[in-house]
């Protein structure tokens, strides 16, 4: 599979980022690594698409960023889900499940 995020189904990157943040707040690199691990290395994300997605989700009020000091006295921005983001994740997960099931039924039928 290609490593370009544009090959993701439109809008799925946002959902995956929300999913990653469901457990705990995380910084940008952490999100990238977690996504790659969880997908078993199928997705390799380019920084550009990730950070554009962060800006978009922040502006939509689904995640919020917070600066924290790191162990080696630098600053890192940690992203966390907002309540709205959690709701959106739930609804999108349900919707995704429904669509996948529907597509699977169609594919099996033929």
């Amino acid at each position: 599979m290609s490593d370009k995020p544009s090959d993701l189904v439109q809008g799925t990157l946002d959902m995956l980022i929300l999913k990653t943040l469901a457990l705990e707040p995380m910084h940008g690199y952490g999100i990238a690594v977690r996504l790659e691990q969880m997908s078993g290395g199928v997705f390799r994300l380019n920084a550009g698409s990730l950070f554009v997605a962060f800006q978009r989700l922040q502006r939509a009020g689904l995640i919020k960023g917070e600066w924290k000091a790191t162990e080696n006295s630098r600053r890192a921005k940690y992203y966390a889900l907002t309540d709205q983001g959690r709701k959106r994740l739930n609804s999108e997960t349900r919707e995704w499940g429904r669509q996948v099931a529907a597509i699977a039924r169609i594919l099996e039928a033929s």
Partner: protein
Amino acid sequence: MSLLRNIAAGLVSLLQKKRVQGDLSEELSDFLERAAEEKMKKGMSRNEALRDVRLERGNFEATKEEVRSAGWESFVETCWQDLRFGTRMLRKSPGFTAVAALTLALGIGANTAIFSVVNAVLLRPLPYANPSQLVFVSEAKPEAGISGLGMSFPSFIELQDDNRVFGAIAGFGGHALVLTGSGDPSEVSTVVVTPGFFSVLAAEPLLGRVFVPEEGKRGSAPVVILSENLWRDRFGADPGIVGRSITLDMRPYTVIGVMPATFHTPFLSQSIQVWIPLAQDPLFSVWMTRPPQEHWMAVIARVRSGISSAQVHAELDAIGARLAGEFPAEKGWAIRTEPLQQTITGDVKLPLLLLLGAVGLVLLIACANIANLLLSRATSRSKEIAVRIALGAGKSRIARQLLTECGILGLLGGLIGMLVAYWGVATLAPLLPSGLPKVHSIRMDGWVLGFAFVLSLATSLVFGLAPVLSAAGSDPHKELGEGARAGESAGPRRARACLAVAEITLAMVLLTGAGLLMRSFAQLTSVNPGFQPKHVVKAMVSLPQFQYSTPKQWAAFSEELMTRLQAQPGMRDSAIAGPLPIVDCCVNLAFQIVGKPTLQPGTPETADYVPASPSYFSVMGIPLLRGRLFNDSDSDTSSPVALISEALAKRYFPNEDPLGKHLTFGFPANGVVSREIVGVVGDIHDVSLGKEPGPMLYVPYAQAPLYGGEVVVRSTLSTSAVVSAIRAVTHGIDKNLPVTDIAALPEVLYKSVAQPRFRTLLLGLFGAIALILAAVGIFGVISYSVSRRTHELGIRMALGAQPGSVMGMVLRETLALTLIGIAIGVPCAIVTARLIARLLFNVSPYDPFTLALVPLALVAVGALASYIPARRAMKVDPVVALRCE
């Protein structure tokens, strides 16, 4: 909610750009560090790790750009950048900017000025409530090809009382009464109306009230409504005017109201000073009791809301049929309506749209010129653009930047253009022919300014398109490659040639239109009016009808006036007559030939009717063709006689001698009588120079006098000397008589063609501008092509080409462009000519003279425009040409 957040976040990153950018950098470098640390744990060196991460995750500078441009604020930001950059580029070449902006300013200014006229006259709705409900009602006789005539009073009354489609209906006629008792005696323009007039127009008075139905009946007390202007000028804006009495035609009228100055009636040819009920008018009230034969009364009505025009037609057809059954004279007549707006603007619509179209073409030619200039600039800027593309600017980004530049240019031109238009409207307004309706409402309002703004943007798109497309097509490899010459690729050169061809085509269309109008105007002004206006002065003397109430008094007055006037030095050639040709045409009367059936059974023949004193024909220079003129023995006691015009003789007495035959006709006040034809006189243009002479009937003034008339004097004295003599003599008889409407006949003739003169002048002006612009365009294309081909021309010369043949080559190029332009232009010009055929007088839209002359002029101008570049080409020095670059 999230929209607000989005806007807020965008604003923050716009306003606190540094902090937001710093945060993003810090976040990204954190990302980079963490990724690199991971790799270093696997044993890579730090540099290796950093390089690896960049390869995997993309260029971090590009990432910043990507994040930055993802928000809406980046669009605002780049627009701002483009604006600043564009302004800088325009400032860097002030000559180009000035030429382009001024060309545009003239084009947009002229368009805006003409549009302000079109807007006021054609587009703005009539100044009444629900103007779309207003209709003009007229009578037509389809089988005789007659339409647009007024109604007779009895027919009007039936229509008013029986219809179910009109909410209000009113009839009216124009007239003039003499106002005495407040300042000098003077004529006031009057409309006689039926009482519903103001309620049809839903007009409210400034003071007092409007007419009530009882005031429309004969025998009711005389009342009058004044205009605000008359009230201010003659009555000092007296707040107690309502209830006071004023004297019109020596008879007291009680003022019941004042109409505000904002109440205009553009369907009447002049601004009105007083309104009186029809029943109170000394002239028209006579017609109230007559059977329906004269179609004299103009009628307006307001259609009830919810009534369709089909319902109106059905109702009017039914009423028309009933009237035809009731009155024999109404047989064959039908009642028609048209929207009042159309009645008002019908005559001027085509000329105005023609002017708007012409000025639009001028703007298009100006656009083509600017596009040409921009294309030359784009070629010299091709390196700059190539560098920017090579550095990663997207083509759409470049296109946007160039379009922004054009937009700035367009708006700059538009801004100056609005000043030009403002000045243009101020200059144009007094030049407008006085017959143009709604002239007073011409101004620069929001619509006009909006038009100018949209026009500026639209033109910048039009002239920006070619350079933007050519820039977007540029290839950085070619432009920046080794040995790239600053030469043009085929694309832009073809675009420039196309623009030049388009300019010639447009100029051809415009010049053909202008040429045809000029030819037509020359024809119109060289028409022989049938009389000799030179040295003839006219003035109107009106008799108040309540003092001079009988035809006997009128005849006595006119005889006295003539005797005294002719006794004055230099005034021997004086006469008095009814309506004068072209001046105040016409009284069209029905007549019957005694002992001969009418040509069309049931319908009387008609001719224009003029009572004239014996010397009228010598004063006016109308020749006697057969028989005799009137003389002093033709009085009201002698047998009734008449003179006819040649046209009447030819049409109704084709193979016989009209002398001695009898005609029956008459003007109401004098009754219908049988008159013997004693002579035939030459034809005159009674209605206008543009209308063929129709049949005329002349009767001796003494046998059919009027309450006053037009005094005409042929004299070598100055106009003012003649007028003061007329005034002195008139006031010597009665000091209360107004002498008005003074004019020299040549001046009247000159004014009668004001509208065609105006449009011919403007179109000629536009044509000249188009020709100059097209010449500049050709000059630009050819001189550019010569300068780009210096190298090639040098080689040709080095190989032995003669200077003459080089010059011929350049001229051939011009000729080719011009001929293609003309070839496309001819059919376009013919289509245009057919559209304006209605405005042409005695000139065919396919006038071979114009259609041959315009292309010749264009070829000549093209040759002239390319002469300078061609000479430069001829003088190319092969050594210099080959050494450069």
